[in-house]
């Protein structure tokens, strides 16, 4: 009986933990999605293909996140640097490290080929 009770308690504890972990992940994904829609989508597009409403006038064109080439190396650093310092014609954004991380996670999940 004690073993069963311990098993149930352990299940509840780990299950609840997993539930919180999941909802936290979902929350961060939503945060990343919202930030992407508000800050990036205008140029990089809703599909992440660099073809947003405002993309046409820029040279070089906004980065295509659906291109396998983009994901070849140091992606986190590339995106972090671009957000923090700007990458002409893209302006620098005043975002926190958490917000930047949320955007990177969202881009990885939503647009990375095979991601």
């Amino acid at each position, binding site marked *: 009986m004690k073993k069963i009770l311990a098993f149930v308690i352990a299940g509840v504890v780990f299950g609840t933990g997993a539930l919180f972990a999941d909802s936290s992940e979902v929350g961060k994904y939503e945060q990343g999605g919202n*930030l992407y*829609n*508000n*800050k990036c*989508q*205008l*140029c990089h*597009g*809703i*599909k992440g293909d660099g073809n*947003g*409403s*405002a*993309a*046409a*006038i*820029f*040279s070089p064109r906004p980065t295509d996140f659906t291109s396998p080439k983009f994901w070849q190396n140091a992606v986190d650093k590339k995106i972090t640097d671009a957000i923090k310092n*700007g990458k002409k*014609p893209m*302006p*620098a*954004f*005043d*975002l*926190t490290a958490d*917000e930047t991380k949320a955007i990177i996670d969202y881009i990885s999940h939503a647009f990375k080929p095979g991601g």
Partner: protein
Amino acid sequence: MTKRLIIKIVLIVEVVGLLLSLSVRNASAVPSLARQTGMQCTACHTVWPELNSFGRAFKLGGYVFSRSSKSYEFPPPIAAGAQISFTHIEKTLPSDFVNNNWATHVTSSDNNIIGLPQMFSLFYGGRIIDKIGAFVQGTFDGAENKFVLDMADIRYANNSTLAGENLIYGFTLNNGPTLQDVWNSTPAFSFPFAVSSVAPTPAAATIIDGALNQQVGGIGAYAYWNNLIYGEVAVYRTTKNGITKPLGAGTRTDMIVDDAAPYWRLVLQRQWDEHSLSVGTYGMTARIFPGGKSSGQTDRFTDTAFDAQYERIGQKHIFTAHTTWIHENQDRDASFAIGNASNRSDSLDTFMIHFHYDYRGSFGVLGGSLGYFSTTGDKDTLLYSPEQVNGSRTGRPDSDGFILEADYLPWEKIRLSLQYINYDKFNGAHSNYDGSGRNASDNNTLYVLLWLMF
């Protein structure tokens, strides 16, 4: 030129010089929209105030795109602008034609006028909070010597998807039909972007071509799908009273719209590489009390318009073209009944086409424009009656001519323009159009403008 005027010019040149030096040296002394986005003026404009695709998306997005993730930013997005101008009209105007005041100086020849300033504006341009933003302009009008709420466009906008493609949708509260539009082929933001405020202008214009600005306030809903299709419906009411009254602040409401006036807009756009092409249609219908009255019978105006725009925006070379044709049906039963019109129904057609080229170099932006305009309509001897300068001897509203303009922007926030308007026909005739011996060419206007934003 009086001694006081010379002193004033020197003082203003010094103030302008100080503002220019601040705007060049200090990155924070830029117009509010550039400050909010962290981008240069050229991100949104070909040459301001003409919008490119980014500027269109930014405006449709509610002016809220920002480099910050905060839903509210401090300080608020305030900016200012000033126009200083010189106008030379081919033939002397009657001495009482221009209001000579502290800001508008008429020389002894009566056909050279200095606007010092022609206008001075304060803007609230950018995010208010979260997804709500505004472009609101309060202007001191030098010729009228008064401060008015000039343009107001307050928006809520959001993004979504429809059939897997991007959808921008939103609502706009504004004080002039086409003011909210993002293409430069509709009247509110079409060429010429600035003109002399003291030179004679043709008497006839459609209601959608500026006549209802500040006279009405309205709310519209819009959607822009896949950079391809834009649709909008709006409804306007008078600013004489009620909830829309603040949108006409400072302006006398003398065109009182009865009940609600619907407005509509549809655009098809295609963007590829450096090119953008759009074709569209817009229009409105309004019942307006004649002669500034606010009750009784009304005249009914129905405007139907078509427009097109082409942009080619390269790194150094920019070429744009805009055109629009507006047809207005005027049912003037009310005006006819009180003797203000000789016909129960009239029509008016206006046409405009404009070509613009700019070169972006290390010295700034240098460009030029060529435009043609034409107004034709039914003869109505009561509506268009003889009167010195502004009247019509023939009873016809017909006017046409060319506009030639050269522009130089040494820095992003300074625009120098040299403009010449050449009239072939004015208020119905080429010669003696007003019945007082004045010819259309007597109104040809040379206009020099220094336009500053800071």
